[in-house]
């Protein structure tokens, strides 16, 4: 019957088109485009990672390892610096503002764990900048003044 013919032709055309249109890598690992994995993994990174910083800045690492900020990674404060790692001469990290930066972690907040060092900045230093007394890379107070 005519109807059956119409349906048969339609189905055949669809199957034919499917052969062309389905992406090649589809189904490689599962019901998705296998190439997508490599595409996603190929994205450039923005944070260099502390191992990279430490290849050049080993002196800072030495200082940091002796203090309370030993486990704080470089880019936690200095921001994303892959560009700097790629081209250390032309790309310089931004200068940091201690008052804003330190307060982010150390401003007292009732929800922070009790044992975490936290202060109310105004009461603690009376408005003086944090890095007047504390060196960020090794924050313990030593003889009261940074160098």
């Amino acid at each position: 019957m005519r109807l059956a013919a119409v349906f048969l032709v339609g189905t055949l055309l669809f199957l034919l088109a499917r052969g062309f249109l389905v992406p090649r890598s589809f189904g490689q690992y599962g019901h998705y485009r296998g190439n997508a994995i490599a595409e996603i993994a190929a994205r450039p990174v923005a944070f260099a990672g502390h191992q990279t910083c430490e290849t050049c800045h080993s002196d800072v690492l030495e200082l940091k390892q002796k203090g309370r900020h030993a486990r704080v990674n470089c880019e936690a404060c200095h921001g994303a610096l892959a560009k700097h790692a790629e081209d250390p001469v032309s790309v310089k990290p931004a200068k940091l503002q201690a008052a804003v930066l330190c307060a982010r972690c150390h401003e007292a907040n009732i929800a922070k764990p009790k044992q975490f060092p936290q202060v109310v900045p105004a009461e603690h230093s009376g408005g003086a900048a944090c890095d007047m007394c504390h060196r960020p890379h090794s924050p313990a107070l030593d003889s009261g003044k940074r160098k």
Partner: protein
Amino acid sequence: MPLVDGFMYPNEVELQWSVLIVLYPYLTGLVAGAFILASLERVFRVEAVKPTYRLALLTALAFLLVAPLPLQLHLGHPERSPEMYLTPHRSSAMAMFGFVYLWYLMAVLVVEIWLDYRRDIVLMSQSSHGWKRLIYRVLTLGSDNISERALQIDERVGWLVTVIGIPSAFLLHGYVGFIFGSVKANPWWSTPLMPVVFLFSAMVSGIAAVMCLYMFLNWLRRVPIDMRCVDTVARYLFYTFIIDFSLEMLDLIHRIYEADESFRSLDFMVHTRLFTSQVLIQILAGTVLPIALLALTQVLKLPEAARKSIYSVAGLLTLIGIFAMRWNVVIGGQLFSKSFLGYTTYKMGFVTREGLLMAIFLSILPLLILGVLVKLLPPWSEKGAMLEPQPPA
């Protein structure tokens, strides 16, 4: 009113599915319901509703043609929608949409309409002129055979298609209910009752739509309404509505009784943000009132004019009520936080791609298409009365 009340997960504040996704199940519901009404005559031999047979089929087609449009407009990348046909993910109910839709459109609805109208198409291809003649010639698919034997075959095949069509119609709309009902992350949606509720409310809306259209079109053409037909349709509407209402009440009572983790948050939502659309529009005006009105016509012996008014009012209220039901499911399911600690607001645009204007346009479009279809494939004869499905002589 601020956008967020209480706490929402940060990514939950914006609603994902808009009024267009409310419209889609409404449209496919009308399709399924209209088709079931048509099958009442074909398969269950309910003689009285014969006059609505062809109109119901054309209504179903008109709405089915428009149904994918709200979905396409909603997609971020509609140009990629063929992917649903090329690589459907078999674990996803939504992936089945493409195939169920295509099956229902081509293998059920179009075939059934073609088979029923074939004799008229052949006759019109021979008697009309100009571009109309061309359209009819194409529709004949090249066959001029309208002998008794051929028509008998048409009748048999048509009957078979309708029999297949009933579960297909259930599937077409039931899977939409499943799309919502199977989302375990959303307690407003996740219930095994969802496909059943969707289906019965679809039948209610479809029957009400055909009833209203039948009365309206006959009034427009100044042709007397077959009251025996309309009384029967209204009776079926009444029965179906009782079942639908019972199912929805069952869901509600069950929720209230079990009072699980989500209950307090949902209960508060229904009493505040969803009060107007759920309690006032859907339940009271859209369900209880039409049922009461229809019950009146079943219990009392009312004069024809009164019955016509009641049917019209009840029909329109029903259509509004079922739309509200879709709204409450889709939008309601996104107004509360999955943390059960807060609520957000739906900001419906007006002239945006997924806004109110678009929703109104897409609601009117099927009626325009129906207007074209009744001109092309008239469900009535020159003299006026609705043509009944062609019996073998």
